[in-house]
């Protein structure tokens, strides 16, 4: 049985089609990333998968239960962490966890044991009786995740979980998610942070304008654009003239500034690196750093999004 099985899922808002016949499966124990540009249909999809709205067409099965028809059983199997930390500001951390436990039908003994465990895992034990409105953003995020985990769900839906968090809280959260996934929880993650998806996810689906553009492992997605290899170079003088000269090296297809470095895209990085050395010698410039770089998930994402946009635009009358 698949953890999540989506078949031809479609959602219309009036005449606007937000999600357009998407299909994909998520295996039990998988860490599945769901990426897309703003307005691509990520949130609409997650809302349908969690029963917050109903599909216009198609089905979504959660551990074999149809979320639209057998909502009750489907909902028993997942927890949700939305983009906004939806906790009760006027309740203490403990009472928030107790409320979540009661909603999921946990006995008093079970929910108090789980709440203690969660407060310890998330380093919130000393704040258990404090009202949430005094909590930092990181603490709120951890409590939201804790509330989603109170009933030990098979699947966890996460919508931009590290959005707005500082580096330390973000790393801690990612570490917890990785550990939970290793322990068997299926994770469905939507994120804008490609690095996050790259390091955490087993597979990634990219949605563009309501349609699935690609579903594959991050490494396979990168391979689809193997031609976008590049040479990243930093010289002691990066004047517009130097930049222009380097971008004009034979086989360089395009260039991009990244901080004080210039990235030269080419199918032949070795040749370009040799040409850069020659140019620096000729002009008495010092090379501060030079690296050949393979395609990143970001490159793959941008390439897939662009192709899909061009494809959809071509379809328009």
């Amino acid at each position: 049985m698949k953890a999540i099985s989506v078949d031809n899922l479609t959602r219309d808002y009036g005449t606007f089609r937000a999600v357009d016949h998407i299909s994909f499966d998520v295996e039990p124990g998988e860490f599945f990333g769901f990426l897309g540009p703003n307005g691509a249909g990520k949130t609409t999809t997650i809302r349908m998968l969690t029963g917050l709205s109903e599909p216009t067409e198609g089905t979504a099965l959660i551990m074999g239960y149809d979320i639209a028809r057998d909502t009750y059983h489907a909902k028993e199997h997942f927890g949700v962490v939305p983009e906004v930390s939806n906790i009760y500001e006027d309740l203490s951390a403990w009472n928030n966890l107790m409320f979540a436990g009661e909603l999921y039908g946990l006995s008093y003994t079970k929910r108090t044991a789980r709440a203690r465990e969660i407060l310890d895992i998330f380093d919130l034990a000393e704040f258990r009786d404090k009202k949430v409105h005094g909590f930092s953003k990181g603490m709120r995020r951890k409590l939201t995740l804790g509330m989603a985990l109170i009933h030990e769900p098979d699947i966890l839906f996460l919508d931009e979980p590290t959005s707005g968090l500082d580096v330390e809280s973000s790393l801690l959260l990612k570490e917890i998610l990785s550990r939970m996934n290793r322990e068997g929880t299926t994770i469905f993650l939507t994120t804008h942070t490609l690095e996050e998806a790259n390091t955490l996810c087993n597979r990634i689906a990219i949605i563009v304008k309501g349609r699935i553009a690609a579903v594959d492992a991050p490494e396979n997605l990168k391979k689809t654009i193997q031609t976008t290899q590049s040479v990243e170079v930093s010289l002691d003088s990066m004047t517009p003239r130097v930049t222009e000269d380097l971008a004009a090296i034979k086989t360089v297809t395009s260039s991009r500034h990244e901080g004080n470095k210039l990235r030269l895209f080419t199918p032949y990085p070795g040749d370009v690196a040799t040409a850069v050395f020659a140019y620096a010698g000729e002009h008495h410039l010092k090379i501060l750093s030079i690296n050949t770089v393979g395609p990143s998930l970001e490159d793959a994402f941008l390439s897939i999004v662009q192709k899909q946009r061009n494809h959809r635009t071509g379809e328009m009358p």
Partner: protein
Amino acid sequence: MIPRPPTARIWRELKSAWAITKKDARIYYLRPGIIMFGVLFPLFLFLSFAIGRNLSADVLVPGLMAISVFFAASSIGPMAVPTERKTKTYERMVTAPVSPLSILFGEIAGGAIFGAIIATIPLVIGIAIYGTRIANPVGLIGALILISFAFSAMGIMFAAIPTDNPGDVMMILNFIRLPLLFVSGIFIPVSAMGVYGVVALASPLTYAKDIIQYALTGAGYYGPFIDTLGMVLFSGIFLWIGVYLHERNRKAG
């Protein structure tokens, strides 16, 4: 998975609904908006009409009790639901394995308990100052439960207005609540309304005030059977419309 018997499911739904009720009590009962629109506003409105008119305690106490329940019970839902839409905590309940009916029952019970508690204040004042006697204590408890439920369900029905600002719902609700005060026999007895007394039949507050009066004094205008029937009917209508509208909002996403 071994299927659970239906009774286990019902029991679990009831426990979830009770959790929602407790949560509402902890968070909303002492909110300034609730104290203002649910308690102080109707109290001063009533006093401004009652003082100087030499009304007897038999008219004053049931009238004040009726409008106390009316305003208090119908204020919790319009405060809680839009606030929770704004903070997205309403979504937390919707994504849990709890039926839409149980969520609304939980919210309604939150308002109903608040309404019943507030109604005891004028009763205690009536007993202490005017020596009010309760002709039918059991009937009064039953009446308060029924009335609180009906008015709380009314509040939940209005809370389906798709907004995340409680003020928007309160404004529309007051647009309905205030005129009802004047056609429900609170300030002018239904018997004195002449042909306009027909309008009173369309107001749930009429039956509420009448049944409280009956329970306190042993005499009412319509009698306990019609009053109970009226309150049950209004409760059913409010609940049905409320469930329908809240579900429609959810499906619309």
